[in-house]
């Protein structure tokens, strides 16, 4: 009797599970308060920035009105105005489009290439590993921002070129994380067991190893995303990122660096946006890593 009910409850549970591992992951993610807050903030940020053309005139971003210069935040200008009298609120909202989405694209490219290179290096070892990792070492021996600067300098300014530059600077770090994770897995018995069942190399890499290394990869990607937003900002601040007058969070701070002493809100407000975005991403990354691990208690 008892065993029967037990089996019945298991069957029920089994059906519930059937709905998907994704469902379980979502449930576990939702338990993590910090991650949920991060996700909430980030979604609001993204939606606001993306939907800007619907409710905010782009002309506000570039319209200069010297008489209105250095207005403190008020109802007319929510975040105040800069030295040319441009509305800071509009500039930050439109700037977010570039900062956030350029970051996403960069990290996505770096993620794909990093996983491919790192996975191959860790799995095959030997010469393949040596060639790939020595190449990564060369890239890593130059500080990331400096490397991006060199690439931008060589390719010229522009959004696409900056994306390339930032991705290249990200790849070695991603590849290194993936390689280390794959190498620890390579020696594991379940990989050998998968091979003894007749799995091919590609299948082992994609079906057995990749899901197992997803945790560290996601942390890497999320940190990379935060880092990239900061890099875009630094490049912008150094004046070789997005060319003015196109707004971008780092560029906005850079444009106003001479006025920061007297009008601190010009630095603090865009700075806050950068910090909040990066923090949210890190929280989401932590939450995702925990949620993806089935061993976590529900």
């Amino acid at each position: 009797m008892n065993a029967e009910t037990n089996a019945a409850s298991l069957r029920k549970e089994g059906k519930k599970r059937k709905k998907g591992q994704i469902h379980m992951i979502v449930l576990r993610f939702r338990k993590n308060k910090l991650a949920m807050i991060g996700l909430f903030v980030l979604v609001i940020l993204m939606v606001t920035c993306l939907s800007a053309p619907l409710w905010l005139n782009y002309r506000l971003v570039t319209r200069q009105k010297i008489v209105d210069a250095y207005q403190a935040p008020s109802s007319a200008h929510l975040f105040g105005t800069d030295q040319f009298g441009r509305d800071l609120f509009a500039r930050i909202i439109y700037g977010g489009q570039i900062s956030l989405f350029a970051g996403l694209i960069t990290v996505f490219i770096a993620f794909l290439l990093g996983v491919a290179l790192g996975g191959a290096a860790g799995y095959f070892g030997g010469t393949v590993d040596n060639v790939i990792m020595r190449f990564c070492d060369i890239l890593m021996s130059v500080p990331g921002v400096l490397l991006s600067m060199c690439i931008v300098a060589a390719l010229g300014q522009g959004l696409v070129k900056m994306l390339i530059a930032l991705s290249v600077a990200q790849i070695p770090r991603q590849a290194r994380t993936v390689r280390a994770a794959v190498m620890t897995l390579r020696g594991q018995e379940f990989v050998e067991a998968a091979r003894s069942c007749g799995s091919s190399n590609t299948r082992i890499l994609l079906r057995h190893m990749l899901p197992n290394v997803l945790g560290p990869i996601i942390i890497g990607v999320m940190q990379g995303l935060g880092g990239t937003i900061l890099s875009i900002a630094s490049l912008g601040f150094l004046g070789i990122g997005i060319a003015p007058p196109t707004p971008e969070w780092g560029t906005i701070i850079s444009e106003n660096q001479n006025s920061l002493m007297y009008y601190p809100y010009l630095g603090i407000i865009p700075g806050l946006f950068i910090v909040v975005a990066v923090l949210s991403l890190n929280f989401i990354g932590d939450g995702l890593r925990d949620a993806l691990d089935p061993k976590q208690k529900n």
Partner: protein
Amino acid sequence: MEKLLEIKDLYVNYNTDESVVHALNGFSLDIYKGETLGLVGETGAGKTTMCLSVLRLLPEQVGEIVSGEIKYRDLDILKASNDQMRELRGAEVSMIFQDPMTSLNPIMTVGDQIKEVLDLHYPKMDEREKGKRVDDILSLVGIMPERKDQYPHQFSGGMKQRVVIAMALVSEPKLMLADEPTTALDVTIQAQILALMKELKVKFDSAMVLVTHDLGIVAKFCDSVAVTYAGAIEESGTIEQVFTRKENHPYTTGLFHCIPDLTSKAPRLTPIPGYMPDPRSLPKGCKFADRCTKCKDKCREMEPHMHEVEPGHFIKCWFSSEGSEEK
């Protein structure tokens, strides 16, 4: 009887940076259809190496098959293409690994892991049929099919080994290589798992190589036995021939002395003195000479051949009844 697997004079080396380890040295073995063969020997005698060689899964760049022949039915394993090998693994010949704790993928449900074998070897089978086969094999190994959506960490060690066995059997292979399948389990579960394996083996009419240190397990579950030492077979025969102890290789005799016997008055077991020869530099003559009680000068000079002391019972020693007659 149909010969399923034939290993002939196999030499396998592990090449490391510092030295060459001779893991198998002239290893020969035949396995017939439906047979259960117990492969006994100390650690490092080459038992696992033999299993891996058959599936050609020796660690790349390190493990090297120097010479010899492995034939599975008509397929020459050492010459087969990678695709042929992939088709063989899991479908015709499957392997059960030593440690069930680590031989399951921690983030795949057990049902998915079993189904994967079917995905690999029966790509055309429809999902419902696959699901049914997974359910069937799970209930055969004594796990409620309802649990197939659970992850390995939700199972106990013995249950995990059942899952591993289910994985190895779901495609109904002709040959199972069980590499110490019960070493990581406690004694009460050992007997259950072995009984289960034997039952399924009979059900699917497959042959099994059971690698173990435990002569008791061999006596209980196997039809025939092969004793390995330093990468070669020293004695082989049916259970009756070897375990009646009428005539044995000195090494086998030594192994028997290591088993506790309730009827004997001996206060201590008598272990075999010394260690196995260093596989990096093997002695010229008989590999067991240094630890053998019967060792003579001749043993150190020339390696003995296999002698058939009675039909089907082989001993590799100069002093076996057949061997001594020859010289």
